[in-house]
């Protein structure tokens, strides 16, 4: 089995216009991945599947990950010239930078023929609002058909050329993408039969928001279950 670096170099030689970046995994598992650019992703996927050395005929897992934009504070040391003419001072300067958010699709590829793997490829969208299209890999591996529909449903990545891109788990009228990190679930915490403090806080927040509608014990004439 080739290392991800070797696969990257081979892909760059085979597809001169493509961008293939190695994403290093700092964890103990050592499963590094390859970041592909969406324009060439389909062609590269077909190559990975059909290449006689790799033969990645089996896409085990396809999933989405949400990376919302986050503020990164970088501390850099800048030398400031002394106006009095003395030696320049070293001053720590903090710069704030907004790292733009994006959605990511991750594919875990294995070879059933050679019993090797995994090779992990990732695709990233431009942002989280209007540039959310990625090429579908369902024409390359049928295994992605339902899994990409699930990513579309829960994360909102639109897969172009997917044969049947509809919501799969939530109902068709549903508007949100619930697996995104900024999803706000509907407030139906009227009452909690459990005694957990955290959920009790939520129930109290609901009661405060629902005011002035009185939150009272059930009226006596209501049919008792």
């Amino acid at each position, binding site marked *: 089995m080739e290392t991800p670096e070797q696969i990257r170099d081979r892909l760059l030689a085979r597809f001169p216009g493509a961008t293939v970046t190695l994403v290093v995994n700092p*964890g*103990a598992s050592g499963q590094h991945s390859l970041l592909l650019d969406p324009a060439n992703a389909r062609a590269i996927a077909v190559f990975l599947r059909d290449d006689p050395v790799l033969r990645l005929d089996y896409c085990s*897992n396809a999933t989405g990950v949400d990376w919302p934009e986050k503020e990164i504070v970088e501390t850099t040391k800048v030398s400031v010239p002394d106006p009095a003419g003395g030696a320049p001072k070293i001053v720590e300067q903090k710069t704030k930078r907004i790292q733009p958010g994006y959605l990511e699709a991750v594919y875990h590829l294995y070879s059933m023929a050679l019993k090797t793997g995994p090779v992990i490829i990732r695709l990233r969208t431009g942002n989280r609002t209007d540039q959310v299209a990625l090429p579908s890999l369902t024409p390359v591996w049928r*295994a992605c058909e*339902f899994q990409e529909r699930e990513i579309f449903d829960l994360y909102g990545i639109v897969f172009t050329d997917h044969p049947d891109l509809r919501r799969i788990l*939530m109902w068709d009228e549903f508007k949100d993408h*619930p697996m995104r990190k900024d999803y706000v679930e509907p407030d139906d915490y009227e009452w909690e039969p459990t005694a957990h403090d955290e959920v009790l806080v939520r129930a109290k927040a609901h009661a405060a928001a629902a005011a002035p509608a009185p939150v009272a014990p059930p009226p006596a004439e209501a049919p008792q279950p």
Partner: protein
Amino acid sequence: MIESPSSPLAPLAGAHVRAVHDAFHGDLLEVSMGPHHPSTHGVFRMMVTLDGETVVKLKPVFGYLHRNHEKLGENTTYLGSMPYTDRLDYFCSMTNNWAYALAVEKLAGQAVPDRAEYLRVILAELTRLLNHTCLAGFLLQDAGASGTPLMYAFREREKILDLFESLSGSRMMCNYQRFGGCRVDPTPAWFDAARRVTEEYPRFLDEYEALITGNEILMARTQGVGRLSAALAVSAGITGPMLRACGVDYDLRKAEPYGFYSRFEFRVPLGDHGDTYDRYMIRILEMRESVKILQQALRDIPAGPIFDSKAKIRAFRPKAGEAYGRIEGPKGEIGFYLISDGTGNPYRYRIRPPSFVNLTVLEDMCLGHTIADAVIILGSIDIVLGEVDR
């Protein structure tokens, strides 16, 4: 019955549907089977288009048991997700536990003591017996053998559930594996009981096979029904007994031995036709192999600790990174994909559900068969909705 076309890209369901549509000219009837239907396993729903009794289009509808497992997993600790994995595929809580523990151990780089590895193999193979027995019962139930085969299957299930209950405290929701080992050490009496169940199991299989395997009605209903080609199965990511019924030799216990599976002698049964009957037979044969593994494991299990003493249970914070761990569950390859950002909760917690992906080819297998056959084909895939919808 439908071969995959030789194109550079993988075959799609839509292409076959249109071809079959053109061949028929009758009035089409659209039927919604489910989510409440006695023959769908749980709350599964199929939108079926029929020409007479023949299926010309079949679209599965999911989500009626979507319990937001992955979102809950992101909002709880690593250990807090362990009981939730029991409820994924509620026949196979032990293998779900193992798959999750394996993924977390990969993420954190944790070792597992020998005795715990043996225990995991024993419990996983007991789970495989349990799952395949119940599947055979439900498949026969779907074929119209109302009651009796399912009662035989559930009689055997209770024996294994008693083992699970005396070990973990719960019949179905065992919550037994931990990152770096297992929760409690079985007593010698437990091992005696496990040996007794293992020794008696082949007798049950003989009895069951004498009733079912050569049964003419079962053969007429299942042979040649729901054929799946090996090329389509590989492309569609089919795993488990369903893949091996097509003749593809891919069992993670052999292909990528996790745990201590490389220490055991067993064979991987393969099918020839990829039809419903082969899928039934593969499971029966796998049960016999599981009994062999159990006998070896119960004989060889060493003494020692069952939990890595250096492992942390509380305040468990693996360093940033990601890991994908997978095992050969009874229904197919169950995997967990975890991304850690260094905090106590996983940043991303993804389950690779075998029966969800195996449903990809349901339409391809059902086209051209009657609606009654579609019920058996669905039964032979072996789905559990807790895992399909999560």
